[in-house]
């Protein structure tokens, strides 16, 4: 069944909201009262509910099935967290109410910050970044501010080839020059390569650990030492923090700044692409540069520091990142998740995520190809497409065939350092039975591909709301909005 667009079924004079009739009072809009219609369709409530329910049924979701998107961490989203976020004491308070009327909200921000610094072994945290990439920006800004405060002209940032694209984009956005560090054949970054790339112009390194190949960087401590010796800072991309929570602290291997994707590690819902939250933890060396606003906890009392005028000695914030205090709605969800798990449950979650990834690796490595067999996987296992050589089936075809088996595909073609990468992250939320069924299904697909049934792949998906969509056409002649069709007379 097709579902039309709201513009095709809505009417400008229909409303699904009943409002009292305004009085005839005089407006005070000067010359700016609106003159023309906007073109916004309305639906009655029954129509609107049906429209969105029907649309939702064309989505895959964690709640409906395993969602093994490597590096995206599609773990279970507890409903308790949604309930807690909707407590009126959190959801119905204004960011600019007098702070005397929101002590509980400030205390919660302080508490989430305390958990994050304790779990990472860091000195401070900036809570306001709105998502992972925003946290990266915040962290790199702190590094830039620190370099400036120390009077250093070190405009170069080292970024490994295997890094997520946001790393170079972030560094470039605030004027750093990006210098690539090659990846080694075993999927890791070598301390020697880093040392070789460091010169006096290098102010920082951005490294993801566990890295995008799903491997814990074995030389991360040496790399940290190298950049520190050179007077620079170590930015760690925390996208994969969920593999090591409670097992090892980034502060212990020399990290100076790391953003934390609350939606990945602490299970705030992905919501079809956001909202996220990206608090960034900072080492002692960077703590003074945390941006405004921040919550300072002294003797158990949480104080909101919003303006340079409010700062204490030693606090030298480099500015403001966003209008208000951060993604409070995500903090409440993450805090419910933290309290529910506790120190024990968080460690168990990391261990189970790693265990599940390695279990899938064990179940599949005889039929799929591992580019980096020398290291155990962390929470995700990376395969490449060598096992498809000669089959006429591409990584993309393979992924689309998984859809027909009822699964969301894994992450494909990332990281770029591997040809035809397939990155599988089962998370800790899957039962052994679910993992076994998934592995068996993948094995069947591999045998089908190597057995010559390429049509099953190139024609996929067949059992989805849509067959293969033409992405080239979408990009070549972009149609980015609905326009009223020319009248068909």
């Amino acid at each position, binding site marked *: 069944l097709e579902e039309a667009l709201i513009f095709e079924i809505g009417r400008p004079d229909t409303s699904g909201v009943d409002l009292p009739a305004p009085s005839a009072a005089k407006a005070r809009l000067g010359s700016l009262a609106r003159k023309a219609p906007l073109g916004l369709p309305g639906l009655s409530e029954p129509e609107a509910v049906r429209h969105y329910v029907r649309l939702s049924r064309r989505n895959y979701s964690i709640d409906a099935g395993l969602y093994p998107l490597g590096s995206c961490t599609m773990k279970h989203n507890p409903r308790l967290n949604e309930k807690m976020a909707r407590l009126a004491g*959190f959801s119905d308070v*204004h960011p600019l109410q007098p702070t005397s009327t929101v002590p509980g909200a400030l205390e919660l921000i302080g508490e989430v910050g305390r958990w994050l610094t304790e779990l990472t072994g860091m000195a401070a945290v900036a809570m306001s970044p709105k998502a992972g990439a925003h946290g990266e920006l915040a962290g790199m800004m702190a590094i830039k501010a620190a370099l400036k405060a120390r009077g250093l002209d070190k405009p170069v940032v080292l970024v490994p080839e295997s890094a997520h694209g946001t790393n170079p984009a972030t560094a470039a956005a605030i004027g750093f020059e990006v210098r690539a560090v090659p990846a080694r054949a075993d999927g890791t970054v070598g301390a020697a390569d880093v040392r070789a790339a460091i010169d006096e112009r290098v102010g920082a390194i951005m490294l993801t650990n566990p890295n995008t190949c799903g491997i814990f960087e074995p030389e991360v401590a040496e790399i940290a030492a190298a950049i520190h010796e050179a007077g620079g800072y170590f930015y760690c991309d925390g996208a994969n923090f969920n593999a090591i929570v409670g097992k090892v602290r980034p502060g212990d*291997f020399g990290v100076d700044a790391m953003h934390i994707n609350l939606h990945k590690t602490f299970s705030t819902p992905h919501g079809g692409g956001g909202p996220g939250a990206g608090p960034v933890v900072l080492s002692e060396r960077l703590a003074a540069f945390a941006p405004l606003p921040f919550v300072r906890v002294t003797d158990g009392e949480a104080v909101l520091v919003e303006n340079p005028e409010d700062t204490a000695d030693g606090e030298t914030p480099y500015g403001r990142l966003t*209008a208000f205090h951060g993604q409070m709605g995500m903090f409440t969800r993450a805090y419910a998740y933290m309290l*529910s798990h506790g120190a024990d449950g968080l460690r168990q979650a990391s261990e189970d995520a790693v265990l599940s990834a390695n279990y899938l690796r064990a179940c599949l490595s005889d039929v799929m190809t591992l580019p980096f067999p020398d290291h*155990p996987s962390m929470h995700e296992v990376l395969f490449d497409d060598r096992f498809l050589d000669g089959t006429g089936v591409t990584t993309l075809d393979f992924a689309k065939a998984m859809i027909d088996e009822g699964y969301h595909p894994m992450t494909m073609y990332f990281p770029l350092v591997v040809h035809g990468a397939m990155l599988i992250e089962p998370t800790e939320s899957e039962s052994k039975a679910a993992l076994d069924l998934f592995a068996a299904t993948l094995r069947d697909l591999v045998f089908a591909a190597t057995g010559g049934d390429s049509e099953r792949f190139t024609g996929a998906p067949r059992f989805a709301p849509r067959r293969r969509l033409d992405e080239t056409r979408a990009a070549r002649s972009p149609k980015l909005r609905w326009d009223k069709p020319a009248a068909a007379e």
Partner: protein
Amino acid sequence: MRYHPLTDADRADMLARIGVSGIDALYADVPADELLAGFLDLPKGRGELEVERVMGRLAAKNLVAGSVPFFVGAGAYRHHVPASVDHLIQRSEFLTSYTPYQPEITQGTLQVLFEFQTQVANLLGMEVANASMYDGSTGTGEAVLMAHRLTGRRKAVLAGGLHPHYAAVVRTLSEMAGDAVVTLPPDPTATEDLLAAIDAETSCVVVQTPTVFGHLVDLAAIADKAHAVGALLVAVVTEVVALGAIEPPGAQGADIVVAEGQSLGNPLGFGGPYVGLFATRKKFVRQMPGRLAGETVDAEGRRGFVLTLSTREQHIRREKATSNICTNAGLCALAFSIHLTLLGEAGLSRLATLNHQAAVALADALGGIAGVEVLNDTLFNEFTIRLPGDAAALVERLAAKGILAGVPVSRLLPGAGLDDLLLVAVTETVTPEDRAALVAAIRAAI
């Protein structure tokens, strides 16, 4: 632990299949001395009942906006959100889905984004919109960067009516990137000469309407001046409900329009998550940051939607990307879109009128108090009053009496010499009784 399906027996079986003796063998790449021996200094896990108690106690310490006469705005507004909005965004298929990388099984999200983009473009009076930004303030920062890319210039001019937090966000980003920013002084009386600040080095002029002080701004003259010198006009709206009543910025010549979408579909939530709206002209689309959904067809020729123009994005262009943004505000955008669909054009217009009339009525009443001056000739649902004393102190006194009277300008602009100014916002959720209570309380307090 209730969220972990694996049993100890499962774990043992799985370790055996992997061929290792214990879980720490999988952490072999972690230097042994860094692997934590025990648990960190944090509490153990708790059941739902206990978690609800802890968080319920924290929540109960805050004064809930809906429980008192409430006049706080300045960039976030308390509107009534239909119950169906929150119900629908909690559908598993929306809530627990990821960015729609596999379009064949995420048509729900993609069609919503396509509809959202069209709604936003129409609401702002522009040609194209993206699939949302984090919020209005970061969107403003991105708009300035986009203007720099389009003009090849690196000096932005910020009007004195721009929300001070937005101005601060732009300055932070610009300073870090080495760009110039001219911030005009705060303009509570809407009397600044903005045109004079625009010159041939200006990449863009950033103007908010209604201003943070509540004044409506006629953008046409500013657009003309900007265009005359090759600069762009970036218009900012922090209260989108206003667009039900006033001319959209697009109709007044804006080149980029940024808005905070929180007012529709999203709760106050102590500041986030919100949803940034971002729209521009079609010819600028390849320099626009953020995700975009586009229409295409599938192998059988049926209409479908995909994320598109991703070559602008950081996962393809890396350090040459239009921005480092990787996600949007998907669920907040969904809430916005559902609320706007429910309102429709007629509902939005009526909602705007109700807001405006209530604000005008309160402004008139407050203006009638001896010693209180209303600074606005024009306004939508928020305005500025001058008090005979310190506004922040008055707000504190009224808060203690259970009235949240507004935002003292000193909260946003400490040290600017505007300590006697108060921003007062009024929406459809404010009753006549609430307004009367505020008037009486201020009359009594000064």
